[in-house]
């Protein structure tokens, strides 16, 4: 659109600004809370801007002194990294062959729909059977057990994303490679997977986020520092008699860092993955 009335341009820019504010305001408030002195946060009326910068909570949470709140926080951070990392890795490993098979053999696509259908079940419906199952295998309060549960959530999701990614790679390319004499593993390794890399990166990131943010199963299946994840640890901060909102905000900021870092690193792959029709539906 070359010709726009000035009013329309103003409207467009105002809308963009409004969207940005709506998205960024909570994050900004989280940051401000995390560096405000405690008095500012309990003042009435609320001090929207900190009187001075207080970084003590970051020190508290990142201190490695044994049995401190910091040690517990760092342990849960590591647990979250382990659980989300393992679940994501396993999900991608499972999803690549499954998605490729479904994409290239439409006759078996019903199986993916069946899996997606179970995905629609609310977690609470599965909580009891999963708990009993994990208890039977001795995997309660274990990062492996939790990662296994997360895999059941992530695998259908990544398979779905990867399938649409594979769909966008013409089958003729694989036919040509087949005539050229490539074996299936060579076709996948040299052609299909590199071409699907952006979509794989996108689905891995979203899977990681999904696992990173999960709270319900983590709350049910973990009980102490050996397996407790960040989301549960943050909830614990709010669970005492006195809730230090500043501390919760600080934990929130720190919890947001790993996904943001990964997102930044994978930015380029991510953008092409998002735009190549990889994230449909």
């Amino acid at each position, binding site marked *: 659109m070359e010709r726009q009335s000035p009013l329309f341009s103003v409207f467009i820019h105002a809308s963009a600004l409004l969207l940005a504010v709506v998205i960024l305001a909570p994050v900004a408030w989280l940051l401000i809370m995390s560096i405000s002195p405690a008095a500012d946060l309990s003042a009435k009326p609320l001090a929207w801007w900190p009187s001075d910068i207080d970084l003590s909570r970051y020190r508290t949470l990142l201190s490695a002194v044994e049995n401190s709140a910091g040690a517990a926080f760092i342990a849960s951070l590591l647990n979250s990294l382990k659980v989300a990392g393992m679940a994501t890795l396993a999900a991608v490993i499972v999803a690549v062959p499954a998605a490729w098979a479904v994409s290239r053999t439409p006759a078996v696509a019903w199986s993916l729909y069946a899996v997606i259908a179970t995905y629609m079940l609310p977690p609470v419906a599965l909580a009891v059977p999963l708990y009993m199952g994990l208890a039977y295998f001795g995997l309660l309060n274990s990062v492996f057990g939790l990662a296994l549960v997360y895999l059941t959530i992530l695998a259908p999701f990544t398979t779905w994303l990867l399938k649409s990614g594979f769909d966008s790679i*013409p089958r*003729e*390319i694989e*036919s*040509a*490679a*087949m*005539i*050229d*004499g*490539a*074996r299936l593993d*060579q076709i996948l390794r*040299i*052609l299909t997977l*590199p*071409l699907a890399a952006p979509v794989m990166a996108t689905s891995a990131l979203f899977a990681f986020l999904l696992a990173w943010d999960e709270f319900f199963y983590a709350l049910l299946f973990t009980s102490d520092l050996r397996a407790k994840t960040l989301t549960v640890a943050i909830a614990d901060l709010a669970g005492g008699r006195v809730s230090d909102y500043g501390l919760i905000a600080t934990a929130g900021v720190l919890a947001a860092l790993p996904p943001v870092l990964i997102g930044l690193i994978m930015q380029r792959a991510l953008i092409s993955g998002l735009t190549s029709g990889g994230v449909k539906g």
Partner: protein
Amino acid sequence: MSALEIRNIHKRYGEVETLKGIDIALESGEFLVLLGSSGCGKSTLLNIIAGLAEPSGGDILIGERSVLGVHPKDRDIAMVFQSYALYPNLSVARNIGFGLEMRRVPPTERDKAVRDTARLLQIETLLDRKPSQLSGGQRQRVAIGRALVRNPQVFLFDEPLSNLDAKLRMEMRTELKRLHQMLKTTVVYVTHDQIEAMTLATRIAVMRDGRIEQLATPEEVYDRPATLYVAGFVGSPPMNILDAEVNASGLKLDGCEEVLPLPAAFNGAASAGRRVKVGIRPEALRLAAGSGGPRLAANIEVVELTGPELVTTATVGSQRITACLPPRTALRSGSAHAFTFDETALHLFDPESGRSLRTE
């Protein structure tokens, strides 16, 4: 020795039968064009030859060896796809050499073969680029190069020029012809473009509805079409098809007074009273000057100058007819003229079966 033999190939997808018994035998060095509109089964047949699809019945022999159930890579074929199907993440050089790489040809030998092929196709300067950095014509050359480098027994082309613009298509057509004359390999080429078929083929198989309507040289397909379908498909503008009846003195066109002489080639095929379809190519018609030869009185409706020729649409009795005349013919729409033609230019077809009534 026949390089490729297709024996009674059938292909069914559930209830639908897309190939209903195809028989073709190709000598080594032949350029066969499978010509037909979309859905006629020509691409399915090509995929069956390539081994990308298995036939429901029949046999395929490449170099006198049945290749049923043989993996595409072991059939000694190379294929150029309509979409080129280049490997987007590999360089042009690696695209061309991929087949050799997969067959574990040593790198130095592979490199030489890739360079030779690139030189042949004039894409030497592009070897380091990625397919996305190439124009359509260059991609096409790379796709052809990828097939050439392996020096297979049979080349398969699946509508390779249909993604190119008109000018480039003509250039590549000539290029393909040059390559074939130079390399003398056996080619099976699928297209819906009758000009490509006429110019490239040593033999054309006109397909329709899973069957071969006519398998013959381009000249024969043009001069002696076996069916009404072939007559209408090959040639541009298409052949005029007129309804007529045979009577004692010749052919009487519907809604028209004149009686045309019955061509000798159709003697005995049509007895008096028989309904026939009469075909005559637009380019066989001329404006009648003197009184000799058969005449068709026509009312000129539309005159279109294309440059090299004057295409005119006229009515003959109640039927419409197209004629291609020399560009400087003085002709106005609305005027009455008479066309004449050589009697050998007439084609007679059975209206029900569509078969040619030619007896010789």
